């Protein structure tokens, strides 16, 4: 059992949970993830490790499906049944010079550890974060404290640049020589944004989040195509060379269980109504 030490909403439908998982906290590095299973009937879901403090790890997620809704309902003192990690390869961070970390939506959650490690490695770190609107924007203050510069974009212009992180990335690239870029967010955002660095051949990483079960290379459900080769996101990734990733395939595989996800939500609501359980679980 893993104790929730702090839980709160960060933005609309976006939540932050600090949970006590010493074996994860002790070893976590930038770019890695963990797997959570809430209870006996729960599924195993992968989530980025967003921050570490002592024995605690922070996860940030958007409440979209049944499991994330359940996670969002957790309060201090609650427990989750299982946390496994850290999983995946750490980000390949070295002293490149000037690097940019780009986060879209809940993908921003991955940036603090990467930005911090990149700075410690001696890089000048520029952060670019974007969200649909100001209400969805997370970690702005925190990243402003970590990055050398931070730029903000919103789709509707309610905060910062009116437009996409890709626009800001383009601007930065035209102004300075950029040595390495990380882009983390929804698949479509990573696809579009990584096209910005493609012509200049700038080394660009994206963090892929396909459907996963065990997270240790055993089931093969997270297979992705990178440079025409099949790779497992859980052990070969989750970060890959953005310019080699087959995003269409990723998105296709991400959609495979949409119907089931809907069914699961319906079942959850039905269950919540019938026995009263879950009324405070939102």
């Amino acid at each position: 059992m893993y104790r929730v030490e702090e839980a709160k909403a960060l933005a609309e439908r976006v939540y932050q949970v600090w949970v006590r998982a010493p074996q994860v906290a002790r070893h976590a590095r930038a770019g890695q993830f963990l797997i959570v299973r809430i209870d006996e009937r729960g599924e195993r879901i992968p989530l980025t490790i967003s921050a570490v403090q002592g024995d605690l790890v922070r996860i940030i997620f958007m409440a979209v499906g049944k499991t994330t809704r359940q996670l969002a309902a957790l309060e201090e003192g609650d427990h989750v049944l299982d946390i496994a990690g850290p999983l995946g390869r750490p980000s390949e961070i070295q002293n490149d010079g000037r690097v940019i970390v780009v986060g879209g939506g809940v993908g921003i959650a991955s940036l603090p550890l990467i930005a911090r490690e990149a700075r410690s490695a001696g890089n000048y770190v520029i952060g670019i974060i974007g969200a649909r609107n100001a209400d969805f924007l997370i970690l702005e203050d925190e990243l402003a404290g970590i990055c050398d510069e931070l730029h903000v974009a919103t789709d509707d212009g309610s905060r910062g640049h009116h437009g996409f992180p890709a626009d800001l990335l383009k601007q930065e690239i035209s102004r300075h020589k950029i040595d390495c870029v990380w882009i983390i967010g929804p698949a479509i955002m990573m696809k579009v944004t990584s096209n910005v660095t493609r012509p200049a051949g700038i080394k660009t990483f994206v963090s892929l989040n396909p459907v996963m079960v065990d997270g240790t290379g055993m089931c093969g459900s997270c297979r992705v195509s990178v440079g025409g080769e099949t790779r497992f996101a859980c052990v070969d990734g989750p970060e890959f060379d953005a310019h080699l990733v087959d995003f269409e395939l990723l998105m296709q595989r991400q959609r495979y269980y949409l119907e089931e996800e809907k069914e699961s939500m319906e079942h959850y609501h039905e269950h919540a109504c019938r026995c009263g359980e879950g009324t405070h679980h939102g």
Partner: protein
Amino acid sequence: MGDRPASVRIHDFLEVDTGLTPDEAVIEAERCIQCKKPGCVKGCPVGIDIPAFIAAVAQKDFVGAAAIIKEENLLPAICGRVCPQEVQCEGVCILGVKEQPVRIGALERFVADWEREHAPKIPAVAEPTGYRVAVVGSGPAGLAASFELAKRGHQVTMFESLHAPGGVLMYGIPAFRLPKDVVQAEVDQLREMGVDIRCNHLAGASVSMEELDHFDAVLVATGAGLPFFMGIPGEQLSGVYSANEFLTRVNLMHANRFPVYDTPIKRGRRVVVVGGGNVAMDSARVARRMGAKVTLVYRRRAEDLPARKAEVERAAEEGVKFLLCTNPVRILGDQSVSGVECVRMEMCDLDQSGRPEAVPVEGSAFTIEADLLVQAIGQGPNPLLIRRLSGVAYGRKGNLVVDENGKTTRERYYAAGDVATGAATVILAMGGAKQAALAIDAMLRGEPFGEGKEE
């Protein structure tokens, strides 16, 4: 005793084989002629004193029989169910020459179940030696080794990356062949013996290599969990599962009970399973139980099927259609699977493994309709931990090279089970693990081991 009828059992995941009643067990045990030089013991990878335990059964001393088995094997309820007895103990039983061999597997299972239900007994543990041993992986090899090490007084810490101990016994072998409470009960004995089982701990990640180095010895028993794919066009389509994924979703995560359990799985109306081993049979039978029409495609002949004969027969009884001498060459579909293009295979010369080589027949391509395809064509060692181990030698297939005692080329590091031998059976993994555990014990005590010494 016997199997539940196929028409009934394909609707549930309850055990197929109902086992022996006490009376049946005694009658079966009385058939044993108590050979002076019993071949069955030699045929058993962990060397159970089979005639002695059978004699105890014949005298209705079921508890005594269990104690005799447990001298050598802590997991009799598991082994009684999943060992390929027909090629081990029963395969060399002298009675098998003229009639049926003694049903040693069924007797082992009966005794184990009897003991668990009537008089569970935890094996005695020696005085603590003060040595600490890490066992990485809690599958058959890890369990068997932990048992031997704990029995000899060593403090064992077992690291398991999944949330439940048991490895392939939990995620791979379906409940209708191996009920999960049976696995749990045998794992719980280890806890009672003082083994510290840490789930959700991926060695090399949640436990660093430096932390592992602090143990007096490390046994790597991470199995062969890396699924192979055929590498044919269409494999990226949704609806293509590795057997590992398909079985894990159902056996470990209970996806067959979705949405009561949260893990989804596609049920499929027409499922094609590729492969001919036990894993393929398990996948096909799981798919049947989830309501699909199932076709098993295997590239060689019926007599070449590597699966246990009994499981092949059960799969057939349950309505799995066998398409033999057939090989898939392309998976068809737009986004998700709609069919499988196959070719006929002609059996020609013997290949290197002594099996007839299967060669495609030109112009024989045909298509089977399918909305799911499960690939059960084997698996290799998971490289996750072992590629982080420095100073160890690897075999051609990515396995860890070990000597006859399970010792790797790195000091104080041993390996056993599929990670050392390549994919094999539960009992072979356990046999190797036991040997490695005894070698570790000798190494810790500073005693010689191996050459010149028996066992």
